[in-house]
């Protein structure tokens, strides 16, 4: 999503780095370098992780630092052999699988192992060792067998974690629950900006490494490495498998197949090279069954209860429309998904042998029209948050499905024509919490209430939202804006433009329920969290309703 355009960023002027050491744009600060120094000599400094659970397999991940000089992005360090073990008990007395992996500088010393032949719906413990050093122990879980009756599935749902904007206490709170089957990360796992280009209002809580915007393979690797040193993120990765997709900031703001808003061709190299670098680093550093240049969109199933289709809405999309009144918006020549992914999505929805069809959807699909009652300041704030210009009553964000209405119409028609039930879009990107019906026809929805799916949007872990942009206290100036949006968009039942936090999704045969948890202070490493609201989608209804 657009958080701030780079023009706005550099015109914003002042920023402050929290803590004693101030950083400067374009220069390496002592504080920014500190995390790198702390890694030296720590073989498994970036933690352990698991992901992409299958009924008979899991993907294990770590990064090994075999010698002090083999820092991420350096290209230094010889190849080393890493041993991995997976056991049915935390004491590793019942080892279910083990093996070795050779890694080296060519893949930034990251390690992936994909043991198979495992038991479905089973908890496992895993660890790595290299050079006589053993990693922390991680816990993970395979998916239940296909078709197995399942009473419940519980997912953490997160997106938009900007390290410069605060602490990842949301991850810590999820890790502490101990009741999650999987964490769905819907993108913006990390941000490309340099120090001071995008932070918590005007405060850099934790400066990025490298201090400049990441544009090269070294940059992307170092930024991934920095995020992986976050203790809260490490804690969550260590206790539950992730299913991830990327949005734009894994490469650059408002990325599309041929470029990005935050990419200057020439001075920042070519987009193709930069995009390839971002994807290579992502493949190396994320616990995902993805190889650079391959296909990220993929599907998982959890018994007969739920499938999860993870979309890639950056790799194949046409360039965003130049304006929100552009006829390009509805052109069937433009695409958000690409033809192959669209066919894969629609076929998967039709052929799903699970009750719930969950779609990991990096950008909102429900149409959102701009209300006509906002003040100039409010419009400006929403424009900044959502990266749009506004005209009353027209779509407000052409980076979302609103900017690719031909593709959206295909999805909605497919859902309706084939009476596909229990489809729920799980969305991130926009640093705010939403619960929406997805209307069969927005024009007739107010009278018919006909909805073909539901959409539940989690808010940001730390990234700025409306109160931050307006510079007002949380739950003050945004409330009127939220009311205006809901009035202009009656299918939007819940909207919180201010809070940061995470969501927990409970899936049962009777309903899908999302609880939104909000942080007391994203800039505090000891932030508490509390449940703010809950909405559910009862089976067969395609509608969101509030819960007490």
């Amino acid at each position, binding site marked *: 999503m657009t958080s701030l355009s780079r023009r706005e960023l550099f015109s914003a002027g002042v920023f402050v780095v929290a803590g004693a050491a101030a950083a400067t744009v374009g220069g390496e600060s002592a504080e920014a370098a500190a995390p790198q120094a702390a890694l030296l000599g720590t073989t498994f400094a970036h933690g352990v992780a698991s992901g992409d659970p299958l009924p008979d397999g899991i993907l294990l991940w770590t990064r090994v630092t075999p010698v002090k000089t083999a820092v991420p992005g350096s290209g230094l360090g010889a190849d080393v052999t890493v041993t991995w073990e997976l056991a049915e008990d935390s004491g590793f007395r019942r080892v279910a699988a083990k093996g070795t992996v050779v890694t080296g500088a060519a893949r930034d010393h990251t390690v992936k192992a994909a043991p198979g032949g495992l038991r479905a719906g089973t908890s496992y413990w895993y660890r790595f060792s290299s050079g006589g050093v053993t990693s922390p122990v991680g816990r993970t879980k395979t998916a239940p067998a296909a078709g197995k*009756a399942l009473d419940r599935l519980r997912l953490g749902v997160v997106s938009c974690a900007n390290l410069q904007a605060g602490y990842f206490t949301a991850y810590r709170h999820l890790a502490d629950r101990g009741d999650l089957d999987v964490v769905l990360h819907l993108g913006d796992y990390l941000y490309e900006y340099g120090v001071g280009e995008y932070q918590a209002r005007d405060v850099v809580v934790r400066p990025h490494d490298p201090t400049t915007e990441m544009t090269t393979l070294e940059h992307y690797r170092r930024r991934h490495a920095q995020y992986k040193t976050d203790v809260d993120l490490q804690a969550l990765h260590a206790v539950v498998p992730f299913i991830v997709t990327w949005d734009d900031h894994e490469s650059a703001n408002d990325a599309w197949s041929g470029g990005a808003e935050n990419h200057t061709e020439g001075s920042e190299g070519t987009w193709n090279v930069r995009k390839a670098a971002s994807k290579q680093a992502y493949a190396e550093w994320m616990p995902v069954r993805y190889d650079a240049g391959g296909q990220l969109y993929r599907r998982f199933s959890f018994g007969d209860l739920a499938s999860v289709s993870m979309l890639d809405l950056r790799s194949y999309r046409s360039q965003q429309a130049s304006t929100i009144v552009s006829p390009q918006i509805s052109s069937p020549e433009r695409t958000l998904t690409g033809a192959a992914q669209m066919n894969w999505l629609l076929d998967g929805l039709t052929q799903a042998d699970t009750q719930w069809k969950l779609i990991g959807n990096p950008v909102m699909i429900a149409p959102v029209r701009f209300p006509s009652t906002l003040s100039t300041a409010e419009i400006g704030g929403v424009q900044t948050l959502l990266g749009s210009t506004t005209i009353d009553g027209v779509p407000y964000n052409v980076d979302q499905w609103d900017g690719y209405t031909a593709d959206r119409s295909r999805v909605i028609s497919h859902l*309706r*024509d*084939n*009476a596909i*039930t229990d489809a729920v879009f799980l969305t991130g990107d926009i640093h705010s919490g939403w619960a929406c019906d997805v209307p069969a026809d927005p024009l007739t929805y107010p009278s018919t209430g006909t909805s073909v799916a539901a959409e539940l949007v989690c808010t940001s872990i730390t990234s700025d939202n409306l109160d931050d942009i307006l510079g007002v206290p949380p739950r003050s100036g945004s409330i009127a804006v939220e009311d205006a949006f809901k009035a202009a968009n009656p299918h939007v039942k819940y909207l919180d433009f201010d809070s940061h936090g995470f969501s927990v999704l409970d899936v049962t045969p009777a309903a899908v329920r999302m609880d939104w948890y909000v942080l007391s202070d994203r800039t505090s490493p000891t932030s508490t969290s509390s449940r703010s609201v809950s909405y559910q989608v009862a089976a067969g209804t395609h509608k969101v309703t509030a819960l007490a």
Partner: protein
Amino acid sequence: MNGPASIAADRRQFLKIAVGASATVVLSAAPGTAWAKPPSIAVPSAARTRVYVLVVDGCRPDEITAQLTPRLHALRRQGVNFPTARSLPVMETIPNHVMMMTGVRPDRSGVPANSIYDRAEAVVRDLDRPSDLRFPTLLERLQEKNLTTGSVLSKEYLFGIFGERATYRWEPGPLVPLTNHAPDRFTMDALIAMVTTADPDLIFANFGDIDRVGHSDETGTSIKAARAAALGSSDFQIGRFVDHLVSAALWENSVLVVLADHSMDWSIPSNVISVDLILRDHPALREQIVIGQNGGADLLYWVGSVAGRTAGLAEIRALVAAHEGVLSVSVPAALRLGAEAGDLVAFCRAGWRFSDPTIASNPIPGNHGHPTTEPIPFFISGGSPRVRREITLSDPARTVDVAPTIGALLGLPVPAGGYDGTARSAAFTT
């Protein structure tokens, strides 16, 4: 109900029961079949499970709400709900009722749609003859286990195709002109009368009001109100039945399988597809096919030369599929519909309908038969301790699952060749 008033004998046996001040219900039974003892002296058998399949014809799952249909809603909440349940192609009344009672798909039952082209008779007609159904149903198979069955079917063509298969039958009446169905009030009178006088182990009942309101409102303006009234009325009748089972001390032995045969979709007058019109500029092709129109589906039958069949059907398929309102064109085998479904099956999109053999043939806005009308309510409830309580299951229940579910519950062996459906035994305690 006032109880049995007279018994008349024929080749079949008839029982005439007075219900209310002026109405009567006439039930028939196979020769030699005994009627139950009069209700005043009837003694329920605690050990005997009765199963009642109640088909709320054309009801959409989202129409069962605490406000609109409180009795159905309560039954669903108290029992086992299958929210993913669906009707099967062609999503019409006759084939789905047949699937419920046979447990097999149309390519084995011979009943793919309501309306087909009968090649032998060279006529488009409803599949409403007993001989049209070529697979044994629960209604006669249970009798081989010395159990008794009953059919209380509100629609004339359902009574026609199921004929005398059940031990006890009710011929629907009085019939509403045009719709050829008996209002739910009379259907429920008959159901209660049959329980009272014959007390079969299985009764298969269809209630047609909701579906018929959906079809018959041609104005498009009063659909919502009329539909709501029909839902409320049908719900009231279902409530009557539950109350009767309770008062007759039968509730504790009762298993209610409640479902619809298909859903309903409405179209505006401009969203009409006519294959006849599509082929207007191809008269040579038009002459080679006959159309069996089924609301949301058209069955196309090649009647031209064998030599021209492949190329002709390919051309027709391409022309029909190109229409904006057409969702798909398939060969019947892909949908397990069998030869009776012809050579091509076209489904329309949501909000559309077919009208053939002419554009004026189908003026009604409410239709089904196409995929958007697949979702159906499907739940198992009742007072029997065998029914699990207050649970929802992800199991993909289908209309074809009714027979294997009841068969398993009542200890009936699977038929020759097996079922195509699945016994939804998770609904019951072990």
